[in-house]
């Protein structure tokens, strides 16, 4: 899949081309880089991470409210609305996967809300053999019971997806049982709580007070290593005492690594495992049949991160794109082209993936994601020399 020799040659050429600048940087250059890196990190926190997690928290909150209402009065139109909200929340989650480092990783939120496959045996046991647990999930603190007792294989997006969707469409309300509604309402409450944790984790006291209060009530952690910093402050204070980032450039490296990691995962795991292995069981989001949209949104998370903010809040002057371009236009060109190519090739995948997983277009998308991951790797090689 990946040609190490070619990659090495590209890397060598890149380094040789840029080494004279890098190795002879004077203190003024270093200071300018440092200041620019601080701007990039701040823009990333405030205009990529913050709006994405805010939107995710709001959508998850809306979904929890809708499912709580549907649990009392289910209608087909209500299910369709909930499916739409589910997809909108999922869109924000997938658009956050370039920054799974930090709160999502430290608090185990990624596996908590996005594990797959659903454990269908455990689900059946819960529905038909566990009246005490169903009763607990139906209680006032059903969201807490779900989060603490169901285990990751019954939680999160894919549990809700299983309730709401069948074969890519919204289920009919009549096909969803009473116990399934109890389960869905509790799991959506837990999903909301975890999305609050992401939001408050990064935004700190800039997050809505009601969300902070909810986490405090549930005694859920949301600061870096139990200290005073939010994840956003931790990144903005890179290089200062108390931050886990030893330098501002190290913070940029973390951002780039997050992008590289998800590009790699989309190509070599999410698509490749099913496509190459011709094994349908490796496909995420099979019930809503929205896998390709997930992949696309993952690459959009890279674009938002690299270009300096989400659409509407973007400032390319304070972007990684600008920072990299000022040091090595060739690397920046490689990355920006690779982002757009990956988006195009994923768009060209025949949908739904679960029915077309073995087609050749998927292999082309894998290559595009690999190219993007490699291009992002070039940035970190460059940053390492600046660090």
């Amino acid at each position, binding site marked *: 899949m990946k040609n190490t020799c070619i990659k090495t040659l590209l890397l060598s050429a890149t*380094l040789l081309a840029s*080494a004279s600048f890098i190795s002879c940087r004077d203190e003024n250059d270093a200071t300018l880089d440092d200041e620019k890196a601080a701007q990039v990190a701040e823009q990333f926190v405030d205009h990529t991470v913050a709006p994405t997690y805010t939107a995710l928290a709001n959508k998850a909150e809306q979904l929890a409210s809708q499912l709580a209402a549907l649990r009392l009065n289910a209608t087909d139109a209500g299910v369709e609305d909930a499916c739409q909200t589910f997809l909108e929340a999922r869109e924000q989650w997938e658009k956050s996967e370039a920054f799974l480092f930090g709160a999502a990783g430290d608090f*185990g939120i990624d596996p908590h809300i996005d594990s797959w*496959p659903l454990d269908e045996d455990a689900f059946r046991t819960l529905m038909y053999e566990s009246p005490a647990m169903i009763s607990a999930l139906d209680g006032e603190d059903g969201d807490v019971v779900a989060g603490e007792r169901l285990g990751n*294989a019954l939680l999160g997006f894919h549990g809700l997806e299983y309730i709401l969707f069948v074969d890519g469409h919204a289920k009919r309300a009549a096909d969803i049982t009473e116990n399934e509604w109890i389960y869905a309402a509790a799991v959506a409450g837990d999903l909301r709580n975890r999305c609050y944790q992401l939001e408050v984790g990064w935004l700190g006291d800039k997050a809505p007070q009601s969300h902070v209060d909810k986490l405090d009530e549930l005694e859920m952690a949301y600061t870096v290593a139990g200290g005073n910093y939010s994840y956003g402050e931790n990144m903005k204070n890179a290089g200062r005492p108390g931050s886990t980032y030893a330098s501002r450039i190290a913070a940029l490296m*973390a951002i780039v690594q997050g992008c590289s990691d998800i590009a790699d995962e989309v190509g*070599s*795991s999410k698509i490749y495992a099913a496509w190459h292995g011709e094994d349908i069981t490796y496909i995420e989001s099979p019930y809503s049949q929205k896998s390709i949209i997930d992949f696309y949104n993952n690459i959009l998370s890279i674009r938002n991160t690299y270009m300096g903010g989400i659409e509407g809040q973007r400032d390319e002057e304070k972007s990684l794109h600008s920072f990299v371009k000022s040091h090595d236009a060739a690397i920046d060109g490689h990355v920006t082209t690779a982002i757009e190519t990956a988006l195009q090739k994923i768009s060209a995948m025949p949908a739904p993936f679960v029915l077309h997983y073995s087609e050749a277009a998927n292999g082309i998308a894998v290559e595009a994601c690999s190219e993007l991951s490699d291009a992002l*790797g070039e940035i970190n090689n460059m940053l390492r020399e600046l660090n």
Partner: protein
Amino acid sequence: MKKNNIVFAAMVCATAAIALTGCQPDNVTPSLPDELVEETYAGGRLGTTFNQSASAFEDPTPAVENAGMVNAFKYGEFFFEHTITQNNPPFNGLGPLYVRSSCEACHPGYGHGRRMERYRADDWANGYLLVVYNKTTDAYETSVAGMPQTKAVPPFKPSIDEDKINIAWLEYTDDWGNRFPDGETYSLIYPEVTIPEDAFYAPLSAPYSQMAFRLESTIGIYGTGLLDAIPDDSLKAQYQKEYDAGVDLNPAIWAGHDWASLYGKTDHPKRFTYALSRGPLQDAAGANAIWNIPNVTRSDRRSHYLSLDKSIYATTASQDPEVQAQFYHYFPQWNKTGDPKTDIYNYLMCDTLPVEMSDQDYVNFMVWHRGLAVPAARNLSDPAVQRGRQLFREMGCATCHRPSWTTGPDLYTDPNGFFSDGDARLPRYPYQKIWPYTDMVQHRLHMVNDIRTGWCRTTPLWGRGLSPICSGHSDRLHDCRARNVMEAIMWHGCPQSDARWTVEKFRQLSKEDRDAVVKFINAI
């Protein structure tokens, strides 16, 4: 998991480029003395990643990439990262009892478990394994597993009811009043675990009053392939050297001039786990855990992991009316006789169970396990780090935290027989100089509520400074009682500790020098 950059080539190129331009910034590796450049490659040229971000413990080694095993590595990684289910392929086979349903839940960010206030199997980053043993004999209690399960799939019941387990964190004051001579203070805490008798499902094999309970945390997985590549005779030489120097060694492992015991029926020494219970990696903690933590059978392990005396759990479950009433409902294929008591017992005791994890999936898992790279050492050009490095050696820390080893031909072996010696399906690390900072030998710290037996293998220090970034915490030592490096050092200073003399020297350092030692430890 993420891709390892081709760092070696990058460094070579950078070196060449800098030489051409004739100026050397003092913050890049090539300007370091040769010795420190070498140490930067903590896992050697074949085993190091230069990723310093949150995924730094997750990269494949250059050896994996060179061998064209990246895709196998990623398939293997799936099994580490994903939650195991009862019957949903490809991650199927959970139960009947299980310790955890996910590997990563215990190894957050692929690293060391986190200090926990409670024991819940589903709590993220809870890397604790319960240790239940007889305080008179130090032997594991046989009515539960060596790693007791607190989870079960229906109709079975866990060996221990985890809701009844209590972890209390108690304050400890050391000989020096938790104070350095210059007045700086620190605090020390340790866990006291209690499990009431009624939390146990099966009858205990000895009086409850003889039971003791401890916690042992997971450690990072990266670099274990490199440790496996250290030659047996190098390990033996280390034991002999320490014995000759008068170091107290575990008589169960070393008998003066030769091994007191070897691993199983092999002629290989024990090298993995705190208790040195495991030998070659291919039959060590990871190869074992992917079977017995979720209880997923595979072709070479077609039985379930239950109580140490397997018949105790099987008998108890087979006689449990509630289990009997539901067994055929959940396991209709095991209705062989119409007598649930007999069928439950036979199911639990069976050693020819259907295979749940395919051989190919297991090979991929072991590619991943043996293929995890070690993060490069960082900031070695920092004068404070260099000062800390010097003090670390001068004070004697390096006596047990041996800085480096050189691997052998790495014709690795598998006591299980699944892989042949040096099998081409797994990555290898021949003749690499590596920097794990462990002597691979057990020592004793004589801490309050110490590890079972008191003997604990020196834990590798490599990469641990990245724990806050990769795992979200700084906790150290076998039960995570140390919340940072300083506390970990001071726990080495108990009155009878093998490392007491070193800590006494550490205490006499200036604050600046103490901080330099900490900085160095976080840099490697």
